């Protein structure tokens, strides 16, 4: 059973020392009540579609068409339309894949790890962050699925998914690439399930409001997905347990997914890839980039929907501090890689790192360093964290920097491997550039649909963190 106020008698010493009252930051500003939260969030779904939404949707759909055109051209012609050539046989496809998957990780971090750590500020941002995760996984999945060229080969003869080919040979389960297929498909599936379970009570609220308003069609649609939720405490009891377990299993899942993504590189022998620091370094980088993207999305959303009472300055502060912490970890990993390259006394490894910083791709390396190491350091200052516009701009740099990190790791290592005779220089083709550019449209289309048709914040969870939700009526918390 949960802890109850009566279980913890106040220690006598408190009366003598009179500790200073340290008020907890409020999570919902302006003393909003339960009904205000319902009206605010349901109002966004029930109201008329705003004009800006149509403009954004049109623009996003136009950008998304670049991906669709690029992929049609790829399937019709062959993977040769991408710029890969010896020795760089992995390039933007895997760079973009790791970039998007990494972005997704902040959503799971917010919904799962912060849930286990009882960080109550997660409640108002977890729904859009989880949506971001799912849409980022969709964008990520495009690249490995389509890099096989004829996409049906991903299933039969099983270049990705476990089906035997025509000779009856199965996938190589000793290969991290096959582990990755399992990791990413599990991640995508569990993220969708977790998100959906979180949505059920709110869909129930929308169902009842549409029923009360006499909108039978919408009541039916939302009601179908609400599964007949009625907020009974016997249901909540099982629901809360299921939610906790999902958070508990998503935490090792998110850590394992990016660890396995890093195995794609670390298990090989290429200098610059073959390092044990990769798993923690990739996970820190993923969370760093993901929070960058969360803020990139959340700040405009907060401004346009006037969600200042729900996403307070405290929320922004917390996220900036996580970006600062993970960005500094990433910076530490960069310097540690250099140190080990020297200390390990392997000439190939040493060369790989000197080449990264001063070789043909030095421009990419220094973009990465300035965006990922220098940018987050601004978040030490409260004045910066309080300036929403500046936070948003800095987060854009984080997004750019993390894309370049993957580019630097993947392309510089392959372009200069062991034998100078096989060295080369990689440039992307226009098809690759368009395909990647279009994924931002794909992502935005999905995100815009989400903010239009679904409750963008978990109402039941936000109601839990306001003072009126305390069953003991105390205002001490």
């Amino acid at each position, binding site marked *: 059973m949960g802890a109850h106020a009566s279980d913890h008698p106040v220690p006598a010493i408190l009366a003598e020392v009179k500790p200073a009252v340290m008020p907890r930051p409020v999570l919902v500003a302006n003393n909003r009540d339960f009904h205000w939260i319902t009206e605010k969030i349901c109002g966004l779904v029930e109201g008329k579609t705003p004009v800006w939404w149509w403009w954004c949707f049109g623009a996003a759909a136009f950008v998304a068409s670049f991906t669709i055109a690029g992929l049609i051209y790829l399937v019709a012609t062959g993977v040769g339309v991408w710029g890969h050539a010896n020795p760089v046989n992995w390039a933007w496809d895997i760079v973009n894949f790791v970039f998007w998957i990494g972005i997704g990780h902040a959503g799971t971090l917010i919904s799962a790890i912060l849930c286990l750590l009882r960080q109550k500020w997660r409640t108002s941002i977890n729904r859009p962050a989880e949506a971001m995760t799912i849409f980022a996984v969709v964008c990520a999945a495009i690249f490995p699925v389509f890099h096989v060229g004829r996409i049906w080969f991903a299933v039969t003869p099983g270049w990705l998914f476990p089906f035997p080919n025509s000779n009856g040979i199965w996938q190589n389960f000793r290969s991290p690439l096959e582990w990755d297929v399992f990791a990413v498909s599990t991640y995508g599936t569990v993220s969708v399930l977790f998100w959906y379970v979180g949505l059920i009570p709110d869909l129930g609220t929308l169902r009842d409001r549409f029923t009360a308003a006499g909108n039978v069609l919408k009541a039916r649609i939302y009601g179908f997905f609400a599964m007949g939720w009625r907020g009974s405490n016997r249901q909540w009891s099982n629901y809360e347990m*299921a939610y906790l377990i999902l958070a508990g299993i998503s935490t090792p899942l998110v850590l394992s997914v990016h660890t396995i993504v890093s195995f794609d590189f670390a298990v090989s022998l290429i200098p610059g890839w073959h390092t044990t620091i990769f798993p923690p370094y990739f996970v820190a980088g993923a969370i760093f980039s993901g929070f960058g993207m969360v803020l990139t999305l959340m700040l405009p959303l907060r401004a346009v929907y006037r969600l200042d009472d729900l996403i307070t300055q405290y929320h922004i502060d917390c996220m900036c501090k996580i970006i600062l912490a993970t960005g500094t970890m990433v910076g530490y990993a960069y310097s540690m890689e250099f140190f080990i390259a020297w200390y390990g006394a392997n000439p190939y490894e040493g060369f790989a790192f000197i080449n990264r910083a001063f070789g043909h791709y030095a421009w990419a390396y220094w973009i990465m360093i300035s965006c990922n190491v220098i940018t987050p350091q601004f978040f030490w200052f409260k004045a910066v964290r309080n300036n929403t516009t500046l936070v948003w701009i800095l987060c854009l740099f984080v997004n750019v920097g993390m894309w370049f990190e993957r580019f630097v790791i993947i392309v510089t290592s392959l372009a200069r491997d062991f034998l100078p005779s096989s060295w080369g220089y990689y440039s992307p083709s226009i098809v690759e550039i368009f395909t990647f550019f279009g994924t931002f449209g794909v992502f935005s289309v999905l995100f815009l649909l989400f903010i239009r048709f679904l409750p963008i914040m978990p109402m039941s969870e936000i109601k839990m963190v306001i003072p009126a939700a305390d069953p003991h009526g105390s205002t001490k918390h």
Partner: protein
Amino acid sequence: MNKTYGIIAAFDTTPEIYQACEKVRDAGYTQWDALTPFPVHGLDYAMGLRRSKVPRFSLAGGITGFTVGMGFIAWLGLSEYPLVVGGKPMFSPMFAFPVSYELTILFTAFATIGGMFFLNRLPMHYHPVMKAPQFVRAMDDRFYIVIETNDPKFNATATRDLLVKIGGKDIAELEA
């Protein structure tokens, strides 16, 4: 006249529903429920509910997932199509681990959600309380207690008196 499903009473604040639930529990009712717009902390205790059984489903799912992963890869390497790659063993739990680990999580997730749906008897698109006009506020900002007529202690007047005594408002009968 239609059969009655039970009696519903409304409460306005979280402390009120919490204390009311304690009193209904102490009065010895078993077939009753509280409707709340969010999970009220400690209400399971106030209602006298046992710990949820969802974890049993999760554990079963996890064990199944891990076994499927290990078993599948062992079957492939040892029996279905043994193939030497890089001089590595045909099967080792080491290289089978990442896939088995992911399948553990995947199966646990499905079992957890399936277990939650099963225990909550979802999907259930019809329920007597949903027909009540006051139900829209149960998902918004008000709290309700429903005591069913098939509770062995149910008595139309005594139960109503209890709900009045513990501070219930807008007390009404629910059609089945």
